[in-house]
C-alpha cells in the first residue's frame, strides 16, 4: 500500500517507536517565543541540561510586544521580563534570537518561511498552536506545550503518537473575492472546530494548487481551528521557487540533495486516508463568523442560523449569541463595527496587505472605526513600504504599526474594549480573545477592508 505525504514525512523522522506508546520523533526546526518558553528553559537549568542543537532552534519576540514605539523600552513590566529572559536564554544556549527591532523580527510563523527555516519535508514545532502554518510547504508542523518545548530543547525530539490521516479535497475553482481565509472558514463551518481532531489534514485539489504560498499558509494556519493536529500540502514548483535563496534554505550540493528528497513528497495514488471530505468551491462566498468559535461562520450574505438548525448544544449556541449581542436569524450584513484588525500569522503577510490596500484605495477610513494594521514581520513592513502600499494606506487615513501578534491575542496594549465589535483577520473569536469582553468577527482581509471604510459588515463584492 502506498503512503500519504504525511506518512512519508512523519515516518522518516521516527527515531524509535515505543510499543503501545508514542513515537520518538526527530524535530528539524524549532521556533520559540517569549511566552511559552521561559518555564522550559528554567527547567533545563534546574536539571543542568544543555540545548542539544542550538542551531535548529530560532527565537523571536512577538506575542506580548508593543506595535508602536518598539525602539523604546517595553513599558509593561512582565512583558519586558519575558523578553529579557528569552534574550538571556538564547544567549546562554547560543540560539539565534531576533528581538524587537531586529530586521528578521516578526510573528514566529511569518518569519519561519521568510528566512528559509520552513522547508518541505521537515518536522517543525513551536509552543504555539498555529505552527500548522508551515504545513503549506509540505512540512509536518504542529504546536506543542511547554513540557514539549523543553523536550525539544534538550533532545531535538518529542514523544508523539502518530495522528490519523484526513484528506480535504475542494473541487472546482474559487469565485471572485473568495480568498484562502474564506476557504478555511468555510471548511471549519462545515466540519466544526472538532471535525479533524486526532487527524493530520492534507489539502488537495486545484483550489489549493492555485493559491499563492501566502494563501496556502493561511489555510494550513487554520487547520488547528478544525481541531486537526496540523495540515499540509504537497510541495510543488511554487514551493521550491519560494524557498530558493532564502537565508537558511540549503544551497549548492545540499540543495540538490534536499531536492531529491522533496521530489518524493506527494501522496501515492494507492495511499489510504482514515477520513476524506469533499467540498465544492462554488459553494463558498466571503465568510464572516457570528459566534464565539471559528466554526460559527456563514457566507456574508446569509443570516445567522436559528438555534433549532444547529447541531450540538442549543444552550451553548445561545450563550454564544448572547455574548456577541446577536439574535438568531438576523443578517450579518450592515452590523456596526468599532474596530478592524488586519494582521496575525493568519493574514499578516504582504498579500493580505495588498488585498486590503486594493479595496480601500481611493476611499477614506470610516471615522467610526479604529483600525489597526499590523504587519506580520519587519520584512512584510519593508515590503509594504517598498511597494507603495504604505502611501496608499496613509492617503486613505490609515496608519501601519510595527510587527507582532498584537490584537490576535491581545497580550500587549492592543485590546478591543469590552462590548465592542471587531472585524479581525486573525484566527480566534473566542470570548475575550481580543480583550476581556471583546466581540470578534473573523473575516478575510478584503472583508476587513470593506468594514474599515464603511464601519459596518459589508460585502466587498458590492462596494464601489
Amino acid at each position, binding site marked *: 500500500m502506498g503512503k500519504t505525504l504525511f506518512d512519508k514525512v512523519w515516518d522518516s523522522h521516527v*527515531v*524509535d517507536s*515505543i510499543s*503501545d*506508546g*508514542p513515537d*520518538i520523533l*526527530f524535530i*528539524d526546526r524549532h521556533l520559540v517565543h517569549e*511566552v*511559552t518558553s521561559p*518555564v522550559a528553559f528554567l527547567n533545563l537549568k534546574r*536539571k543542568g*541540561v544543555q540545548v*542539544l542543537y542550538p542551531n535548529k532552534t530560532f527565537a523571536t519576540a512577538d*506575542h*506580548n510586544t508593543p506595535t508602536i514605539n518598539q525602539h523604546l523600552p517595553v513599558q509593561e513590566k*512582565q*512583558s519586558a521580563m519575558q523578553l529579557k*529572559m528569552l534574550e538571556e536564554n538564547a544567549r546562554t544556549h547560543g540560539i539565534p534570537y531576533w528581538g524587537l527591532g531586529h530586521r528578521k523580527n516578526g510573528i514566529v510563523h511569518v518569519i519561519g518561511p521568510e528566512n528559509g527555516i520552513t522547508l518541505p*519535508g*521537515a518536522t517543525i514545532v513551536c*509552543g504555539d*498552536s498555529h505552527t500548522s502554518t508551515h504545513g503549506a510547504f509540505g512540512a509536518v508542523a504542529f*504546536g506543542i*506545550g*511547554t*513540557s*514539549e518545548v*523543553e*523536550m525539544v530543547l*534538550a*533532545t*531535538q*525530539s518529542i*514523544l*508523539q503518537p502518530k*495522528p490519523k490521516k484526513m484528506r480535504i479535497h475542494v473541487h472546482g475553482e474559487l469565485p471572485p473575492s473568495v480568498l484562502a481565509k474564506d476557504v478555511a472558514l468555510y471548511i471549519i463551518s462545515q466540519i466544526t*472546530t*472538532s471535525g479533524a*481532531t*486526532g487527524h493530520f489534514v492534507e489539502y488537495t485539489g486545484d483550489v489549493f494548487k492555485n493559491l499563492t504560498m501566502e494563501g496556502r499558509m493561511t489555510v494550513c494556519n487554520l487547520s488547528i481551528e478544525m*481541531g486537526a493536529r496540523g495540515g499540509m500540502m504537497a510541495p510543488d514548483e511554487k514551493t521550491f521557487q519560494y524557498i530558493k535563496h532564502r537565508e537558511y534554505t540549503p544551497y549548492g550540493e*545540499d540543495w540538490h540533495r*534536499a531536492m531529491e*528528497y522533496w521530489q518524493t513528497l506527494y501522496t501515492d495514488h494507492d495511499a489510504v486516508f482514515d477520513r476524506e471530505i469533499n467540498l465544492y468551491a462554488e459553494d463558498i462566498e466571503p465568510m464572516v463568523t457570528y459566534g464565539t*468559535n471559528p466554526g460559527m461562520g456563514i457566507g456574508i450574505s446569509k443570516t445567522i442560523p436559528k438555534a433549532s438548525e444547529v447541531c*450540538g*448544544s442549543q444552550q*451553548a449556541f445561545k*450563550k454564544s449569541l448572547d455574548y456577541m449581542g446577536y439574535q438568531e436569524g438576523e443578517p450579518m450584513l450592515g452590523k456596526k463595527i468599532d474596530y478592524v484588525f488586519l494582521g496575525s500569522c493568519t493574514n499578516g503577510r504582504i498579500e493580505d496587505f495588498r488585498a486590503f490596500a486594493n479595496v480601500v484605495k481611493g476611499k477614506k477610513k470610516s471615522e467610526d472605526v479604529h483600525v489597526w494594521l499590523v504587519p506580520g514581520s519587519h520584512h512584510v513592513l519593508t515590503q509594504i513600504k517598498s511597494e507603495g502600499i504604505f502611501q496608499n494606506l496613509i492617503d486613505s487615513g490609515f496608519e501601519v504599526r510595527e510587527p507582532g501578534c498584537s490584537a490576535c*491575542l491581545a*497580550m500587549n496594549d492592543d485590546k478591543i474594549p*469590552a462590548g465592542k465589535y471587531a472585524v479581525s483577520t486573525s484566527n*480566534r473569536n*473566542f470570548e*475575550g*480573545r481580543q480583550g*476581556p*469582553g471583546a466581540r470578534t468577527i473573523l473575516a478575510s482581509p478584503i472583508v476587513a477592508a470593506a468594514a474599515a471604510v464603511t464601519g459596518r459588515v459589508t460585502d466587498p463584492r458590492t462596494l464601489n
Partner: protein
Amino acid sequence: MAYEAFHVLESTAVPLPIENVDTDQIIPARFLKATERIGFGENLFRDWRYHQDDTPKKDFILNNPTYRGKILVGGKNFGSGSSREHAAWAIYDYGFRCVVSSFFADIFKNNAMNIGILPIVVSPEFLSAIFSAIESSPQTRFKIDLPNQIFTILDSNQSQSFDINSYKKNNLLNGFDDIDFLVDKREEIVNFAFDRPF
C-alpha cells in the same frame, strides 16, 4: 517538572457542562506573562469566575462551595484552541488531578498528561450520567482506578473503562516525565540526526 504519581483517586467532582471550553477561557492570555510556573490556579477560568472588578461571579461553579473535588467534568471538545500548557497548569494548580469529558482537543490532552493530569474520555451517554449524578447529589463520589483503567460513579456503581497507552500509564503511575526518558536516548537521537538532509 515532576508531579505526584497517580494511582487510585476517589473524590467528588465539579461539573462544567459546557461544550468547546477553549484554553483562552481556562486561562486568558493576559495571565501568560509569568516566567515561572506559579499562581496559575488563581486565574483558572478567570473571566468566567470573576467580574471585571475582580469580584466573584456568584453563578459560576467554582464559586459555589457545594461543588468541590479533584475531578473536573467538562463538556465535549474540552481544551480546544491555543496550545498553552498554562491551561493544564492552572487546572492542576487549582487542585484537579483528572478531567473527564466525551472528547478532548489533542494538544490539551498531551499537555495534561505531560504534567500529571489524567484526561479520561467516556462515552457521551456516560458523561450525561455523570452530570445527572452530580446534579441529583453534588456529594456523589467517583473512583478513578488507573491501574485497571476504570472510572466508577460510586453511589450508583455504574462504571466504564477508559483507554490510555501503556507508556503514558506507566509514567502517570510513577510520576515520571517524558524529558528524563528522552534525555536517556540522546545518543540514539544524535546518531539518527547525523545523516539528515538539512
